[in-house]
């Protein structure tokens, strides 16, 4: 007999929270299909260019990031005693939670018309050139984020190779090429398809980067074109058309990714870089040393230098004036609120879904899988598309600009949901298989079970996942720009405006504050919730 329990309500509420926005968005899209002038759109060469550019930049970003990451991971693995190794790996993990507007800012500081590269070029006698806006800048920014992500996963794989294998290879006298062919490549190729699919999806739906560094007719992606259709052209039907296209493409990319295997945990590589033993036989040659030096220098230029440039730009005389500005602190408080609410909401959604999943797993496998799919909706309906749907769907009923931040929280929580859900579900399966019998034999149920048994095991993954969601939400510049109104600011939005209005000093200080907020949120939540480390 079916008995209603409290978790049923909780679970149902989570489902509603996840599905309602989606249904609203889809409903809004469908209501526009009659107005849409399909024939006109299909003939529109601009739209075709946008579609082509979306695929092209994502392909290039993926290939470049992966190739560089392979080289960097290999060089890092070969140099366990390299002095900057710790710093580089630290920056690599930090790069995952750097707000995209900050990365863009760092890249402009380095590559912009008045940037360090052009200054050096000028000093050498060349004419300053503007190359950062457009494809080059977009690629630089995508590499900034995805090179560290992939390099960490590759390095983790390389460090997992048994010491015996290296000893064997040195006894067999393998050359560097032989090591690559017989040892490294077989260990790395397994993660490659999944990683490529993930990076491709991230780049394909990337918004803030393309909006700030691209945006012209030559360098616009579908995601940005949707934004432009709403904000600049006020052409809702076109936004709907592009949104539906984006949903089809994202669905296709996700389908390809799933065919390639189980998703990899992109943040699992926490404890890397500890291996101090160098057993490889190919580290001593001069060529090898020069090669590694060149690769690590390139990684430094691509990832570390933009971050350092942001910090340097933030140290200027304007700080007092900027910090005394009330708007800045309002934006700060808004961003903090968005970050914490998104993380909490994401956790609640995931928890509710996991409870349902646990219930269904023993009764109906398909239903359990459906739960996981529900949590991954955001992968098919990317944030800006979802926000567009909500914008169009809610506009007749409420003042969309007033509910700005709530939508930001909701969309960011949904963005974190796939990761949160997976982390939580894996941990729950472990708790179940390890302690279910013990708990029932000792009669530990309900609240006591949660507190005594589950929390100590779940807190570490929950801490990491919440820290990630919070940090990413704090730096989100997508939904907030779409719904943006002058009254409600967040730090990334403020940063974006100051970047556009040539307030260099103010932008610098704001950037450091935003970077600091993201990193602090990440570190504090991870430690506070995750508990003491072993």
């Amino acid at each position: 007999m079916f008995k209603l329990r409290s978790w049923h309500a909780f679970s149902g509420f989570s489902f509603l929270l996840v599905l309602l926005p989606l249904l609203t968005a889809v409903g809004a899209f469908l209501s526009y299909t009659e107005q849409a002038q399909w024939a006109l759109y299909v003939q529109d060469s601009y739209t075709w260019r946008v579609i082509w550019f979306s695929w092209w930049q994502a392909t290039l970003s993926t290939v470049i990031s992966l190739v560089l990451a392979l080289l960097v991971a290999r060089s890092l693995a070969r140099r366990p005693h390299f002095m900057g190794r710790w710093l580089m790996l630290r920056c690599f993990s930090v790069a995952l939670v750097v707000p995209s507007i900050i990365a863009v800012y760092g890249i402009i500081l380095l590559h912009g018309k008045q940037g360090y590269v052009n200054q050096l070029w000028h000093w050498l006698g060349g004419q300053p050139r503007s190359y950062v806006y457009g494809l080059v800048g977009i690629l630089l920014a995508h590499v900034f984020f995805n090179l560290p992500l992939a390099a960490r996963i590759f390095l983790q794989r390389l460090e997992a190779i048994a010491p015996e294998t290296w000893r064997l290879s040195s006894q067999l006298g393998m050359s560097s090429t032989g090591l690559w062919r017989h040892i490294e490549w077989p260990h790395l190729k397994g993660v490659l398809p999944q990683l490529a699919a993930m990076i491709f999806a991230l780049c394909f739906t990337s918004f803030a980067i393309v909006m700030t560094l691209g945006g012209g007719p030559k360098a616009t992606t579908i995601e940005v074109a949707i934004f432009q259709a709403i904000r600049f052209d006020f052409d809702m039907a076109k936004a709907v058309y592009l949104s539906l296209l984006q949903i089809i493409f994202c669905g296709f990319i996700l389908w390809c990714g799933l065919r390639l295997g189980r998703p990899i945990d992109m943040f699992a590589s926490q404890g890397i870089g500890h291996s101090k033993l160098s057993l490889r036989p190919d580290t001593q040659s001069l060529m090898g040393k020069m090669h590694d030096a060149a690769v690590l220098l390139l990684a430094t230029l691509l990832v570390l230098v933009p971050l350092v440039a942001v910090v340097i730009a933030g140290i200027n005389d304007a700080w007092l004036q900027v910090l005394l500005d009330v708007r800045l602190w309002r934006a700060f408080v808004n961003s903090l609120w968005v970050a914490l609410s998104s993380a909490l909401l994401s956790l609640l959604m995931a928890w509710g879904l996991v409870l349902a999943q646990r219930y269904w797993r023993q009764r109906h496998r398909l239903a359990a899988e459906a739960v996981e799919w529900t949590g991954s909706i955001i992968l098919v309906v990317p944030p800006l598309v979802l926000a567009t749907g909500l914008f169009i769907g809610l506009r007749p009923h409420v003042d969309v600009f007033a509910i700005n931040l709530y939508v930001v929280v909701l969309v960011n929580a949904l963005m974190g949901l796939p990761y949160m859900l997976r982390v939580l579900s894996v941990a729950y399966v472990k708790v179940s298989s390890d302690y279910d019998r013990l708990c029932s034999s000792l009669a530990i149920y309900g609240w006591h079970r949660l507190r005594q048994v589950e929390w100590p095991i779940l807190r570490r993954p929950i801490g990491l996942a919440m820290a990630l969601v919070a940090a990413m939400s704090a730096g989100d510049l997508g939904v907030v720009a779409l719904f943006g109104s002058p009254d409600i600011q967040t730090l990334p939005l403020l940063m974006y405006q100051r970047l556009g209005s040539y307030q260099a000093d103010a932008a610098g200080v704001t950037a450091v504050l935003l970077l600091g907020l993201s990193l602090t949120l990440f570190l504090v939540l991870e430690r506070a919730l995750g508990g003491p480390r072993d």
Partner: protein
Amino acid sequence: MIELKHVRCGIGEQQFHYDLQLPEGEIVAVMGASGAGKSTLLNLLAGFIKPDSQVDGEGEIYLGGERVDTLEPSQRPMTSLFQEHNLFAHMSVYQNLALGIRSNLKLTTQEQRQVEQALDQVGLANMGSRLPKQLSGGQRQRVALGRALVRRKPLLLLDEPFSALDPALRQDMTMLLKTVCQQHQLSALVVTHEPRDALALAQQVVFIAQGQVHWQGTSEDFLQQTDARIKAYLGENC
């Protein structure tokens, strides 16, 4: 003669110091408690670990009168065999053996015949095309032994090669190792925890304690020892 002249090295807090002479053409069992320095001895011999700075005459390693501690691991006349991870998982049994001859796997007809012979000797004829994951643990160690044969190095260094195997398999492998070493006149250093293996395999035992050679002698003598440390290691039953 295999000779280590006051070879020292420090790993973390622990200091190791080996001064040792062993006959060639024999199987020697290396015994001792966990962490005593058995594997370190083998790693130093193979060149996987570099000894600490050498004072004249000290820290040198000789094999058959030739100095080997100045050579790279790949140039030393020895082959190592570990408890696991001896094979490349993506390569067939045949390729794993071929790797012992040439790392680009391109073998001459004569070399191909060598590989076939070695496979035959370790009892894996017709298994050349299998992948390591299609083999049992014992078969995998046979492949590793086969590779040691095609490499034709006079000294085998085996670090607990059969510890992961069932007792019966272990006995088979012990016999195989013994036969192979006799046929090819190989010397072997075998790290083992099992006194019975030591007795069945080796004429000589080296007992290591606290990073040094504590005792050296024949395997029969070893089991009769009244030395407190050895008795403590062997336990009351032996």
